[in-house]
């Protein structure tokens, strides 16, 4: 093997990127990691609740990897390809073991075993956790291993560098990237025999979300514009429980419900069993008698109660507020932990409780929390392929096309990959899918590079010079622009429009209207003038560039939503409220037109090992239907930043 000739680039230093880097470096190939932020500060730190895996306790109660697989497929409303999910569920216990060996401080039982908690979409305890900052702890473990490999010279970190464009050679394969040093603003082309995109989600397209400030989806959009297909863009997870804030929506973990938190609104029960608003909107929640608390999730879903999957909880909370039953008639419901006792809450949920205390100024051990849904996770992403096993039970380990995009040599791991979660992600499956992609598919990348007939080092320098010049030229146009448009204003309008039209409830006419708005914003984005044209740490420039890229992805998200004339998982159309397997048991595949608009095709979901079945989560037939108001007002999560 001629290791020194090869190079792999990983873009993004979150869980997926670091797991891939460690695995590829371990296979003997040098890795260059590019990240906008120091990798230890990646958005993965925000994951709170935990990581799912079958475990011995659950197994002895009848749970298995197969159940984990089945729950994930059912939770995703049968849109996910089944072989990758099957493989992931079977790797999950091994991944927990590995993280345990790396020193992740998982919570422990009295005997010293890993403790478990209940999470949405399952009736078994199969979620492993480290306090309420599991993502932070797991990311740190991988950051530490990456630091070790960096110290040994196997990994090179390019931190404070932004990915600008994939470099595609004349045979159609990706053989490098263009990136920019965000301090010196230098633009450079880098050679690589494979490029792994691990750049996460796109919450910022929706203005306010639970995402970190760098989660613009800009990197995915650039790959999409360069020819990579984008899949299932319309599937955006709106987390049921977020804390509204001036700058972002802060996540209140599903673990709050998994550990016994109850969702309710103050209301009065009528003689016929229906609930109506209480005349006094200003009551102290602690003084409200039990008979005037409407635990609507528990009443409507007696089997799963407060731990129904996220899309269902979100729609129910949204609808309760639209019906005027929200706290004080507004867009808020109570998430109540007070009955659990301070000691229990602080032991199991300290991290998230602190977030609420710090950012709201109230103590959840004393007062019920006020929450509302917020944009949280991108189920869609770059389209990828893989090699299924012949019996469809898993994927072939080490296959060179493992999670490869439609552009050969370009891979997508983690949240930017559209696989695993279908139409709705189950809580605590995200950390798992990110690490699984890195470890399982990283081996495929290593094999692909070792067996490659043509290497980046064979490519002419002109290919790289041209790519760097193309990005320099784009930047010059932006810097020299003399228009009248402010990128922050455009981003704000985009966020408000996307949240109002394309989150909890959607309809054909509203999506059409949003597409027109995005087209208007795209025109205006061509007339941006920067408030800062200097060439040193110019954040204004990076933001303006990402804004244009977000608009391109917004178009794909809206058009996918418009053409998917059904409701499935997180995608709910008031004009097509039922799932339609005959037409739409299919992946939405978007391709980018030269003008930044998208064209949509549907690709049938391949047959798997479980047949689609109705997804009800045991909802009581006589419970009020989950039918939202036809013309929803823009919810609180639509409020743009000041």
């Amino acid at each position, binding site marked *: 093997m001629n290791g020194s000739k090869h190079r792999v680039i990983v873009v993004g230093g979150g869980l997926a990127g670091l797991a891939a880097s460690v695995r590829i470096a371990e296979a003997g190939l040098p890795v260059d990691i590019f990240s906008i932020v120091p990798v*230890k500060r990646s958005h993965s730190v925000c994951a709170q609740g935990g990581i799912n895996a079958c475990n011995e306790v659950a197994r002895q109660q009848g749970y298995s990897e197969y159940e984990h697989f089945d729950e994930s497929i059912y939770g995703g409303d049968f849109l996910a390809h089944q072989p990758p999910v099957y493989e992931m569920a079977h790797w999950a216990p091994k991944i927990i073991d590995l993280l345990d*060996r790396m020193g992740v401080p998982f919570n422990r039982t009295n005997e010293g075993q890993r403790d478990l908690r209940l999470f949405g979409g399952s009736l078994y305890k199969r979620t492993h956790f480290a306090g309420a900052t599991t993502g932070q702890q797991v990311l740190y473990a991988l950051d530490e291993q990456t630091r070790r490999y960096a110290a040994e010279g196997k990994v090179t970190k390019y931190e404070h560098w932004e990915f600008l464009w994939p470099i595609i050679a004349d045979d159609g394969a990706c053989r490098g990237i263009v990136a920019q040093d965000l301090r010196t603003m230098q633009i450079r082309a880098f050679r690589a025999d494979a490029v792994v995109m691990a750049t996460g989600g796109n919450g910022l397209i929706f203005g306010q979300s639970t995402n970190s400030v760098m989660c613009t989806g800009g990197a995915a959009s650039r790959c999409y514009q360069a020819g990579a297909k984008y899949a299932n863009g319309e599937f955006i997870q709106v987390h049921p429980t977020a804390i509204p804030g001036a700058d972002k929506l802060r996540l209140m973990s599903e673990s709050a419900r998994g550990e016994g938190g109850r969702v309710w609104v103050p209301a009065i029960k009528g003689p016929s069993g229906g609930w109506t608003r209480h005349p006094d909107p200003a009551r102290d929640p602690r003084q409200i008698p039990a008979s005037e608390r409407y635990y609507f999730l528990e009443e409507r879903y007696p089997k799963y109660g407060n731990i129904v999957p996220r899309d269902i909880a979100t729609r129910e909370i949204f609808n309760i507020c639209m019906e005027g039953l929200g706290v004080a008639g507004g867009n808020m419901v109570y998430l109540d932990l007070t009955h659990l006792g301070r000691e229990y809450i602080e032991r199991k949920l300290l991290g998230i409780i602190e977030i609420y205390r710090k950012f709201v100024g109230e103590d959840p051990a004393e007062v019920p929390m006020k929450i509302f849904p917020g944009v949280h996770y991108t189920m869609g992403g770059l389209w990828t392929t893989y090699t299924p096993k012949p019996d469809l039970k898993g994927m072939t380990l080490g296959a060179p096309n493992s999670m490869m995009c439609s552009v050969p040599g370009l891979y997508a791991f983690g949240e930017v990959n559209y696989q695993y979660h279908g139409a709705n992600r189950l809580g605590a499956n995200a950390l798992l899918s990110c690490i699984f992609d890195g*470890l399982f598919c990283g081996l495929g990348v290593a094999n692909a590079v070792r067996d490659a007939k043509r290497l980046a080092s064979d490519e002419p320098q002109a290919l790289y010079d041209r790519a760097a010049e193309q990005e320099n030229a784009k930047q010059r146009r932006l810097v020299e622009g003399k228009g009248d448009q402010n990128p922050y204003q455009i981003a704000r309008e985009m966020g408000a429009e996307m949240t109002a039209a394309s989150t909890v409830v959607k309809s054909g006419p509203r999506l059409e209207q949003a597409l027109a708005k995005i087209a208007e914003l795209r025109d205006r984005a061509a007339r941006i003038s920067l408030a800062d044209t200097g060439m040193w740490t110019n954040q204004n420039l990076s933001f303006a560039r990402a804004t244009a890229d977000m608009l391109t992805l917004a178009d794909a998200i809206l058009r996918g939503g418009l053409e998917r004339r059904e409701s499935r998982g997180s995608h709910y159309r008031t004009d097509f409220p039922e799932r339609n397997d005959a037409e739409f048991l299919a992946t939405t595949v978007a391709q980018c037109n030269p003008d930044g608009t998208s064209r949509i095709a549907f690709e049938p979901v391949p047959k798997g090992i479980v047949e689609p079945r109705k997804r009800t989560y045991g909802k009581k037939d006589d419970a009020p239907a989950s039918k939202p108001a036809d013309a929803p007002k823009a919810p609180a999560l639509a409020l743009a930043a000041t």
Partner: protein
Amino acid sequence: MPTATPNAPTSSRSRTVRFAIVRCDGPGKPERTELFDVPVEPGANIISCLQWIAANPVTIEGVRTTPPTWDSGCLEEVCGSCTMNINGRVRQACSALIDAVSPSTTPPGPGGATITLEPMRKFPVVRDLCVDRARFFRNLERIKAWVPVDGTYSLGAGPTESPDHQATRYALSTCMTCGCCLEACPQFLREDKPEAWDTSFVGAAVISQAVLFNDHPTGATLKPQRLDVLSGPGGVNDCGNSQNCVKVCPKEIPLTESIGAAGRQVTVHAVKKFFSGR
């Protein structure tokens, strides 16, 4: 009422707060202070105000300037990005709520409060409120802040651990490398030359990370190397025991306990080395 504010406050519940931001165009460039009046809604924090200023970069004199530059990430006080000095105290900007930092409702001007934002002073300034914390990460590498596992293949579970031991490790493991403890430390001095980093004080967070990894059964195999660093120049003996670190830590990590533990480990290490002759 301010007249030069580019956008008038939009809500009756909002008020106007004046910001004094210490600006610097780049390494070696002079500093200046610019004043901005910002309409503030209830629940606003320093980041939401900076975002507003970036979108409306006009000073109180009505002069258009460049948007200020700052680091931020999660905005949930878990990534460690947005450390800065706010009214002279180092902390995370995201969790600094305006109503807590500046409760005065007096409008800007004579008698009105001003929120001052300055970059951390113990690290080289990149631009405005952005600093370069590379030295911090370099020190994590020096003390080998990792568990040396036998690779990423499936080799069974890690060691079992009591809940108390987990709680101790978890507390130390929430360190987000924000740098508050270093900024507040009288012994941690700014050092711009990377060649001097390896002999300058490592500071509380790095010492605490060494203790964390020494406390893990597999991590402990590197304990002698970690203690070599901590017993050398810039090691734990440079601590002056001011205890500022533990007062400013946003995660309330027991840093002084870590420093105490590291001090004892270094002593034992020195005795062992003396008798073994290695």
